[in-house]
């Protein structure tokens, strides 16, 4: 059964759907009649014409559900939260530290749920722990999460120490929790940059044209997006007196995301999904929200309302960017154009440079 059709559809439904979407009566050649060479003229613009098998995709579109797009966001949020928590811890900002640590735990808990939920066989999630493979970014990510998750959890739970009674066994726990939290928080922050950036490799290490071609950009886009989202949460939830570093961090995050991501639109045909359609609108919305959120954050020093608004814009920007990039990949895998045309151009190039 192909992916589009549930088995209970009436016979012929796929045929009718196919007929409706047919752009050429013969179904095979999306090709205008081409003049045979002989006049010695070279085409200056490479024609975007190609052949396909009834317009069907060459690749299988990713079977990942929106869980994974959501995970890109929550994983980044967790990593950013851990970094902010550690920064606040080292510079004596207890309120921001608490927010950072809880952001990290919330993000990583949501990530774990989303990742397990996306599996075809969720009950077998632990099979990920059978092997460790550097050729599989998902395996690398599993082990990063396995290290980061418990550390972030311990650091966040240590924030509950003041709620414990002064005396007895729990009193002892109250005294030893903060130093344990400190160590765990710093260790979580040490793994956080890997958690935020490996997802760029996770998407790029596929045959999906728009993801693979974006491999130089994606880790930077995701790093910036992670810092922006976590800073956004900090601007919303942390005490106003402690958010000065967040404003600088937001500026850096925007610079990393926009600086690293400007190549997304400049990678040839496969950048189309980043600029067109729903995926293009999401990516653009992510950029616009990032710009607005950053600008607002910079002027929000004295206004709680502006801080919250800028924080919300930054979080929304991260969500839009992640879903936009995710969707762009799915679009590029579904249309044979993005597979065939760049490969044809590559072949034509190698044939023109190497003597036959």
């Amino acid at each position, binding site marked *: 059964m192909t992916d589009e059709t549930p088995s209970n559809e009436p016979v012929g439904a796929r045929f009718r759907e196919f007929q409706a979407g047919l752009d050429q009566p013969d179904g095979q050649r999306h090709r205008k009649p081409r003049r045979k060479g002989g006049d010695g003229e070279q085409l200056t613009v490479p024609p975007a014409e190609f052949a396909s098998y009834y317009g069907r995709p060459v690749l299988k579109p990713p079977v990942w559900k929106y869980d994974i797009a959501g995970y890109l966001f929550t994983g980044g949020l967790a990593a950013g939260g851990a970094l902010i928590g550690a920064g606040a811890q080292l*510079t004596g900002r207890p309120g921001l530290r608490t927010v950072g640590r809880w952001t990290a735990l919330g993000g990583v808990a949501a990530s774990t749920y989303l990742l397990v939920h996306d599996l075809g*066989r969720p009950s077998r999630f632990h099979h990920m722990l059978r092997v460790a493979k550097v050729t599989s970014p998902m395996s690398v990510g599993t082990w990063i999460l396995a290290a980061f998750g418990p550390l972030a959890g311990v650091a966040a739970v240590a924030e509950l120490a003041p709620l414990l009674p002064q005396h007895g066994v729990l009193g002892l726990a109250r005294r030893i929790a903060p130093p344990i939290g400190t160590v765990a928080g710093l260790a979580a922050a040490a793994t956080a*940059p890997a958690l935020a950036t490996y997802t760029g490799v996770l998407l790029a290490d596929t045959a999906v044209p728009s993801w693979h071609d974006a491999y130089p950009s994606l880790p930077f886009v995701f790093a910036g997006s992670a810092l922006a989202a976590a800073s956004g949460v900090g601007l919303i939830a942390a005490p106003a007196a402690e958010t000065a570093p967040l404003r600088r961090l937001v500026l850096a995050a925007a610079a990393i995301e926009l600086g690293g991501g400007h190549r997304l639109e400049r990678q040839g045909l496969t950048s189309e999904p980043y600029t067109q359609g729903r995926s293009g609108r999401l990516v653009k919305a992510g950029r616009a929200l990032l710009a607005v959120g950053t600008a607002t954050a910079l002027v929000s020093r004295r206004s709680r309302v502006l801080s919250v608004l800028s924080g919300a814009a930054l979080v929304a920007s991260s969500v839009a960017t992640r879903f936009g990039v995710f969707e762009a990949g799915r679009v590029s895998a579904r249309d044979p154009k993005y597979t065939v045309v760049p490969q044809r151009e590559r072949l034509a190039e190698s044939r023109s440079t190497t003597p036959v």
Partner: protein
Amino acid sequence: MPHTNALYGPLDPAPDAGYENPPPRMGFFTDTSVCIGCKACEVACKEWNGVPESGLDLLGMSYDNTGALTANSWRHVAFVEQPRSAGWATPAFAGDPDGPAISPVTAAVGARTSTDTGTDPGLDTGSPAAAARMSGGPEFLGMPGAQPPGRGTGEEGRTDFRWLMMSDVCKHCTHAACLDVCPTGSLFRTEFGTVVVQEDICNGCGYCISACPYGVIDQRKDDGRAWKCTLCYDRLGAGMTPACAQACPTESIQYGPLDELRERAAARVETLHERGVPEARLYGHDPNDGVGGDGAFFLLLDEPEVYGLPPDPIVTTRDLPKMWKRAGLAAVTMALATAVAFLGRRR
């Protein structure tokens, strides 16, 4: 120490995977020039491997109602109808007797020379005028046509036409992206150099599906796991031929040691070129291509994309070292940005 070509370039996969003295690498050579589109391979594969039905539907793609390689179709026969001649550069039906069965002249002659049958009803024998009129073509009498369909009429609408048929299958790449990215170790390299999914390990993460440059491996919806051709690993172990190759009535699907198949394929292409089929070409046979050569390769009569194959696939993990470097750079940038932000002024 990993081989220098561990991610890209020519390689013998079984020794690279750690097998000592493995048997020769086995594979398929699918010669589409003799494929008759009978789909015996699809059926045999389903029968032997217990692959569930793919649903009954009409896709409107010539005689192809399978559509593509999926989790439930490990062989897929593609049908391409093309308005062009079959390679011999002669117009369709040239020299074939495609005119009316008889001419008025021969009918008139025939009517005169027949012997008297002694029957009264009907047309008198020996009335040449009527016979000549009738032989001129069907007279519409409110009955179905008196001639076979297409004979005598529609000549001007005829075009050169050819049918391409091709039985597609998992390519069992030398550098298999599905195998590289599998996070559970469910996909593994066999001693025959093929790539197989262990269904008791696969947890349906779906990474292999996005990684395959040919769009072969697929998720079974009601089951969640990834499935694809095993090159009949169970039969290979017993020294048998894979089910599809065994069932193929025209030896379009040939199974054997890959080296031998490559020689045979090169000879076949040469023969076809000699016989006037210049468009015959091999696909996936070259160990220097983007996936290090396919374990299952093809002889095609048109560009690969016409059959739904990528024209120049490259294993995605070729660029993996560069990807990790970019991610490392991004991670360092991220850490530095945080440090700088927190080291700045207090307020």
